[in-house]
């Protein structure tokens, strides 16, 4: 249950702050040991790193889906929108479109965005929307108590598939690459430093960034042991498209890092052709003049 803020503003922290100036007072309800803690910490570190580059935290906003992953919205001291299950990437695109000066980080779940919201993910990649998607990939619908997600392996037993999952999993890295993402990375919650770098780089990248973060769910899908062994930083930087795709298919090891990066005009710059809808919004007399123009034209 959430307590109202108690922080004393005189101590220098804002009224909503919890343990630090990037953490709210929102009571953390993740299970002890959950990989989500590391993602939260990496996100905070990434924000600080971006501030070092001159991207102030006021200009960094976030959107979240619905799921355990999304609770990060309540904890992280960034502005933004706690949206709907599966819709965070659509909402984030709207945020970016409204004010392209903002950097938008989208925290999504694997159920959230590979299931309910798959089309938004792939279309954001296709049009190269300039948002950074951090997918908390725990291979399960955790918040709703462990049903299989689109990334769960065949045979996975959850409450909706007590006889075992009959479907084969989707490959998120492959699909985002194929859909046109210009920044595709794999992170691991067990490597906060690496993840911090990925998130910051994703934000720095102009265009659609997708980071598949291996996130063990200690309660429903505890894969720490496996990930600790397989998820090691990859050698070298981004690969060619073909090599990235080949690496994305490998399941025997799970190298982390930026698999692929490319340059292409972003959705918003192509669509707005340089305008900033919020900043350049016309005043009343501009608007009425435009109306009159069309009426007379």
């Amino acid at each position: 249950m959430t307590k109202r803020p108690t922080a004393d503003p005189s101590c220098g922290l804002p009224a909503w702050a919890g343990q630090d100036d990037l953490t709210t007072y929102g009571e953390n309800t993740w299970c002890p040991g959950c990989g989500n803690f590391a993602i939260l910490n990496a996100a905070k570190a990434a924000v600080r790193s971006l501030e070092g580059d001159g991207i102030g935290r006021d200009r960094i906003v976030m959107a979240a889906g619905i799921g355990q992953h999304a609770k990060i919205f309540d904890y992280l001291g960034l502005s933004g929108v706690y949206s709907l299950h599966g819709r965070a990437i659509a909402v984030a695109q709207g945020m970016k479109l409204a004010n392209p000066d903002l950097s938008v980080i989208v925290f999504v779940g694997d159920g959230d965005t590979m299931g309910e919201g798959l089309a938004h993910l792939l279309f954001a990649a296709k049009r190269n929307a300039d948002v950074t998607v951090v997918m908390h990939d725990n291979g399960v619908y955790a918040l709703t108590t462990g049903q299989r997600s689109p990334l769960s392996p065949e045979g996975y037993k959850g409450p909706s598939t007590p006889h075992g999952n009959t479907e084969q999993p989707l490959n998120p890295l492959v699909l985002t690459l194929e859909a046109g993402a210009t920044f595709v990375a794999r992170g691991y919650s067990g490597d906060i430093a690496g993840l911090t770098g990925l998130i910051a780089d994703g934000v720095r990248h102009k265009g659609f960034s997708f980071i598949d973060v291996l996130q063990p769910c200690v309660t429903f899908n505890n894969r720490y042991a496996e990930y600790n062994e397989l998820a090691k930083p990859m050698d070298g930087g981004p690969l060619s498209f073909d090599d990235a795709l080949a690496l994305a298919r490998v399941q025997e090891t799970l190298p982390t890092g930026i698999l692929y990066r490319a340059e292409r005009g972003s959705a918003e710059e192509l669509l707005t052709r340089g305008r900033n809808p919020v900043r350049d919004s016309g005043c009343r007399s501009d608007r009425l003049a435009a109306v009159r123009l069309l009426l007379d034209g």
Partner: protein
Amino acid sequence: MSRDVFTYLVGGKAGEGVKKAGSVSANLFAEMGRFAFQYDDYQSLVRGGHNFSVVTTATRDVGSHYGKADLIVALDALSYGKHRGSLAPGGVLVCDPESVPGADAARNSADGSAPDDGPGTVVTVPIRAEAKKYPLPGLRVGVAGAATLCAVTGLTADALEELIRAEYPRDLENNVAYGRAIYAAVLAATDVRFPLERGDRARPLLAGNECIALGAVAAGLDVYAAYPMTPSSSLLHYLAKHDDELGVTVMHPESEIAVANIAVGAASMGARAMVGSSGGGFALMEEALSFAGMAEIPLLCMLSARSGPSTGVPTYTEQADLRFALNQGHGEFSRVVASPGSFAEAYRVTAELMDIAWRFQTVGIVLTEKHLSECSATVDIDVEGAAWPEPSLALTGAYRRYAVTEDVVSPMLFPPSGELVKWSSYEHDEYGVTTEDGETITLMHDKRNRKLATIEEHVKNLSTVVWHGDPDAPLIFTYGSTTMSVLEAVRAGGLNAAVVQPVYLEPFPTWELEGLKGTRPVVVEQSSTGQFETLLREKAGIEALASVRRYDGRPFEPLELARELEEVLS
């Protein structure tokens, strides 16, 4: 023969420029300072089939096309067959002898009536044979409509040429030659003339969706997102075409769900966002409406109904989405629904709802129908009369997105601002942080519900119910685009009736209707179950004396409607 109301109908295949022929004539009438109303009847197909366009014009305001036409141009056999019966007494039908073999001059009797086929004169003119003298004959036949119209209404061949220059610039010289040939042929074929007086002044000719677009722009529209769906698509097309001039960013994403969530996201960062669709697409936006309601994100929507349910009859009209529009989304949140009854009102109401959406951080729905969305008419728009949103904005300070205030609404603030601004679909505390605490849940429900009364107070200052005509006359209730048909019927039939038209449907303007409790009006609507009638009974205690309904996808015809009304009113 000079007539008070003159109606021109042109029919042909999809792809032959029938709609264009209609709008050319409507523009011509508008430039003559006359009023005009254009209705396009088309099927859900791209080539072939049967389309027609009807334009009615007068020197006074005209709210509908008429069923009986004074001049009909039938470009093909189907059009001849379908519309021969729609020729007004004394009218003239011009058709092509190739397309309509039987319809030759022999059919005409001396007094200009063809006893076999009903009233009026049928003449043939070599529309297609003449067109075949030039390349792309199929694309040219629309010019025949303009030529015929000019000939019959007594305009000069030079006036016709000017018209063709303005409206058919592609392959111009051939068009002019063709038009002059048809003009001469029509003059030779018939003596029937309908000289049209000039009216008071030229007015712009606009479609309903264009009025909605301009209303939104007048109220500061920044972002429009939509997925194509008849009859809402023309709003998307119009804004996309004029985005630079209007200062609007237009996006057509992968689905209506994306549309709604993109708009919500855009609004959360301060952009005045709007979405539009028809029933099926709107149904997909429901979850996002409830989201906007909970998060108190301003969102303006346009819902243009077509004949339903489901895919229904995409290019035809109906008013069957009323209860759907009023009850969208799960849970309890404020929303405002208004339905314009005229083109000018479409402009005004859209701007008002943008204002309301931003002032009260709520969902606004412009409910309209294919009939208003896609018909065009000469309009007198009160450009300056548009509302301008005056949202409550925070002066920086320790900001709480959902601060519980005396003013009911919590001031807004948009990043970058130096403050933490958290919008949430979860139940939340004043900072927007999720809560499961019972007291806070109650507090926040109450906070949101207080807006209902505040919105009602605000709406009371607006024109929520429009009275047309003598208030002591027998009452007719109607709403939305049907208002135009009813008003025209009353005018055409010379009926003694007052037309009462609720523009706002949520909050329902009971305060305006209190005096009418117990009256027994006639209720006119385009719904098969009488949704508007039910609403009147349930909200205002007004029981219908008689119901006049039409739900075959076609709008009411004013003279038929007048007869029906006369019957039930007497």
